[in-house]
């Protein structure tokens, strides 16, 4: 999503909450039994004021960000945000209020305000809220299956690792390097008037690296991004494991469910140096071989966003835009989003993914469902108050709020491309391409407000000629149209090549909220795509 933004500078990384001691990140917070008593204050108050439905989310959101550049620690930030958000339906209309005064009195006042907001807005509401039924789950819990809580790892250990990576990158040709480690823990308690009391402990981690090589004599500089992904994992992701490394084409090492930051820093420094003298791409039509940590972002923009039902219906028209994937196309049951090789699934349960939870932020048990099956558009992403608009009776379970003090709404689940069914490796794929380009990792990206026309680049780009990697190239970006692109898919590597890309701060809504989401796929080939040369002489 593009930010609108004010002023002259880029949008900063969102840092929510107050700063705390590192040790407090391990404090267990309020006991579940106490949360239940407090949540019931909200639910009972709402019902007493005539609300037909209410839910309460007591949330404790912990973040730790460690920033380094070259041989320096720039900053270490620990934050905690704790409060309650109460959402009600009164007079057929939503109302929401939140408070960090998590006491019976504070909650009662906030609930009264939520009901008042609902009643006030009901005067200008034209259609009553219709909620798809969901069963009450009783008292249940869910936890990200982590092996090592990142919040329990001393900052000094993280700093040592980041500075070691920086030092090795500098020794291997980097002029500058930024290395940041983000760790997130959402402790969320959800209760609703339908009998759910859900306690969840969600963990995410993201090592972000950017390496710059400079040639001062020519005034040229090149950047290479790290090839690690944000994951729904603990600190175990940062512990290298050779069995989780994947050899890509062109000698590039890629990572599945474990990352080797230091090895990637060394490789990245050498590659950034190599970019300084690599030739510029010849524009034209190429067969593209897209590596998962690259294709994930294309999936995010060209499949994830256009199939959000609120976009399709016009609720996001003023900010992110609407969608080409309109209801009339879906209703034909024969709209070729892609060709028959293309199967795109939404999944809120995928292990290690950023979007994995047991229950969404309105208490619906999470699941996996088809969006595109055998190339045909078969479904959207919808939550409880939307599914009736596509004649369905069950929410997909993809409602999310970034915090206790923001109202929950439909957010993108993990959306992934299923791997090919026949054994087929990246080497097989390169061998089969006569004139192609292999793109690795995240580069520039842009797509229109209805998700037709897009342009993407990679962090590493290689030319393929007659079945072999010819060498690294610069200035390549591909432009295509979503439907044409997915219909030009000609081959997908098998599950051995499957990995996840992630977006840690995906923005949507006004006021904007962030969420984190993964996109899995294997290396995939797309034929005859237009590649432009982005080099300019100024």
């Amino acid at each position: 999503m593009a930010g609108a933004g004010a002023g002259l500078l880029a949008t900063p990384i969102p840092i929510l909450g107050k700063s705390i001691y590192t040790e407090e990140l391990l404090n267990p917070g309020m006991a579940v039994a106490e949360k239940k008593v407090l949540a019931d204050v909200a639910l009972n108050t709402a019902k007493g004021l005539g609300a037909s439905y209410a839910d309460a989310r007591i949330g404790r959101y912990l973040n730790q960000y460690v920033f380094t550049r070259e041989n320096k620690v720039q900053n270490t930030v620990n934050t905690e945000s704790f409060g309650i958000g109460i959402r009600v339906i009164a007079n057929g209309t939503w109302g929401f209020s939140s408070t960090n005064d998590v006491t019976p009195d504070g909650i009662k006042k906030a609930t009264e305000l939520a009901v008042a907001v609902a009643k006030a807005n009901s005067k200008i509401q034209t259609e009553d809220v219709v909620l798809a039924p969901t069963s009450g789950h009783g008292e249940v819990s869910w936890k990200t299956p982590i092996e090592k809580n990142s919040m329990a790892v001393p900052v000094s250990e993280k700093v040592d690792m980041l500075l070691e990576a920086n030092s090795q990158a500098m020794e291997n040709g980097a002029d500058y390097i930024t290395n940041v480690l983000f760790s997130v823990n959402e402790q969320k308690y959800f209760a609703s008037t339908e009998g759910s009391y859900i306690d969840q402990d969600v963990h995410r981690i993201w090592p972000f690296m950017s390496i710059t090589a400079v040639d001062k004599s020519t005034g040229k500089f090149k950047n290479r991004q790290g090839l690690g992904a944000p994951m729904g994992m603990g600190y175990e992701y940062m512990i290298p494991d050779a069995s989780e490394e994947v050899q890509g084409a062109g000698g590039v090492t890629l990572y599945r469910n474990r990352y080797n930051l230091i090895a990637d820093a060394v490789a990245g420094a050498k590659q950034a140096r190599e970019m300084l003298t690599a030739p510029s791409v010849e524009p034209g039509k190429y067969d593209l071989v897209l590596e998962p940590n690259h294709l994930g972002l294309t999936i995010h923009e060209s499949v994830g966003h256009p199939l959000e039902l609120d976009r399709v219906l016009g609720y996001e028209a003023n900010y992110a835009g609407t969608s080409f994937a309109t209801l009339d196309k879906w209703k034909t049951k024969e709209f070729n989003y892609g060709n028959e090789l293309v199967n795109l699934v939404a999944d809120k349960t995928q292990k290690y993914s950023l979007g994995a939870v047991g229950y969404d932020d309105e208490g619906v048990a999470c699941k996996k469902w088809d969006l595109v099956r055998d190339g045909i558009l078969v479904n959207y992403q919808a939550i409880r108050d939307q599914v009736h608009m596509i004649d369905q009776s069950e929410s997909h379970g993809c409602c999310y709020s970034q915090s206790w003090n923001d109202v929950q709404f439909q957010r993108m689940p993990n959306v992934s491309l299923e791997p090919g069914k026949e054994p087929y490796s990246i080497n097989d794929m390169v061998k089969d391409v006569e004139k192609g380009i292999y793109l690795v990792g995240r580069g520039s990206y842009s797509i229109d407000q209805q998700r037709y026309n897009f342009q993407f680049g990679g962090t590493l780009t290689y030319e393929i000629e007659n079945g072999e990697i010819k060498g690294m190239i610069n200035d390549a970006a591909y432009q295509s149209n979503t439907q044409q692109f997915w219909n030009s898919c000609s081959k997908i590597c098998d599950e051995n090549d499957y990995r996840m890309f992630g977006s840690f701060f995906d923005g949507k809504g006004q006021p904007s909220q962030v969420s984190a989401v993964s996109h899995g796929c294997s290396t995939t080939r797309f034929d005859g795509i237009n590649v432009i040369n982005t080099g300019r002489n100024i």
Partner: protein
Amino acid sequence: MAIYSKSEAQEIMKRALSYSKADGCEINLSGSDSGNIRYARNTVSTAGARSNQQLVVQSNFGKKVGTATIEEFDEKSLEKVVRRSEELAQLSPESEEFMPPLGPQEYDESKMYSEKTAAIDPDYRASVAKASIEPAKAKDVTAAGFFEDYADFSTMMNSNGLFAYEQSTGMDFTVTMRSNDGSGSGWVTRDYNDVGYFDPAMASQIAIDKALESREAKAIEPGKYTVILEPAASVGLLRNMFGSFNARSADEGRSFMSKEGGGNKIGEKIVDERINVYSDPLNELAPASTWTGEGLPRKKTVWLENGVVKNLAYGRYWADQKGVAPLPFPSNAIMDGGDASLEDLIKDTKRGILVTRMWYIRTVDPQTLLYTGLTRDGTFYIENGRLKHPIKNFRFNESPIIMLNNLETLGKQVRVDGNLIPYMKVRDFTFTSLSDAV
């Protein structure tokens, strides 16, 4: 109410500072009352209000720095937050780039506050939504919009005697109007510190007209075209260009502002000689903050004069390294314009394209400041001095440096996103592909 007066804020910070035992201590206190309303499909979707306040203490022992934050300001909490920042500082690694707190500074009186904006209530916000929705419905158009207002204060005090205080208000409004047949879309944006300047009905009408006029757009070939850029269209590219006005990244050799062979481009002509850009916190139409979060005063500063780079921003650390005075990033950009109205610019154009807005702008090559993005919500073909017909949206790949070198005419200035930007006519703007998006 989260807004403290100058004397109330001073009192709280003085009490907090009295607990400091560190080599240096700096306190930032801020608070905000804000409200918003969002609508779509010609009905209100959400509305909210938020009030918050925060006190941030930064303590240092030498170059070891710790920061702690608190939302309650009783005596016990104030002492606790200062102690906590000191303990964190003792535990932290040395920050090589830390600069000690500044001494007393002189600041201009900010012009960002308006009583009228501070008094906005939910009824006013609802009336903004109504002023969009009702005329839209009457024209078979669907409105989706967002209005947000705030009143806030920020203040700082440190152990070296610095004190700064400022109040501000503001509002931002955007609305997208789509014709109900799905073939036309229009958009408008308005932002002011003083809501007295804002006319929601008039703004909404511009978007409605664009939605209706942009129906049934025709495709024309991508390529290089003369364009008339509304200020809301060019501001995104200009904002990105100003992001590179940073001395450190230039000196480090990794910016468009880096000079071949080393150093930076201060003194070099980079764009057409008619381009003059400065920042001025005291501008009446687009006022900005008169000091930075570090306590540096913001003064009128020229960035581009007759197309020549006059200044780059220096943070305190980099200024110290280079032996120059620190110069903060601008908080507004004021680009000199001309007398021509939009109508005049269109009248003087034989063949060209009018662009309402650019969307999803992303860096393609930081070396040349090449950006890609798309036109959106009202793109029109101009022939022989008049708008001939709407055209389909384009993707562009263009650098604001090339754009400002290809300047034909500067028109009148308009406030957009807190800046003053003129209408511009530019030749050879590079559109690289067509988009079907409406």
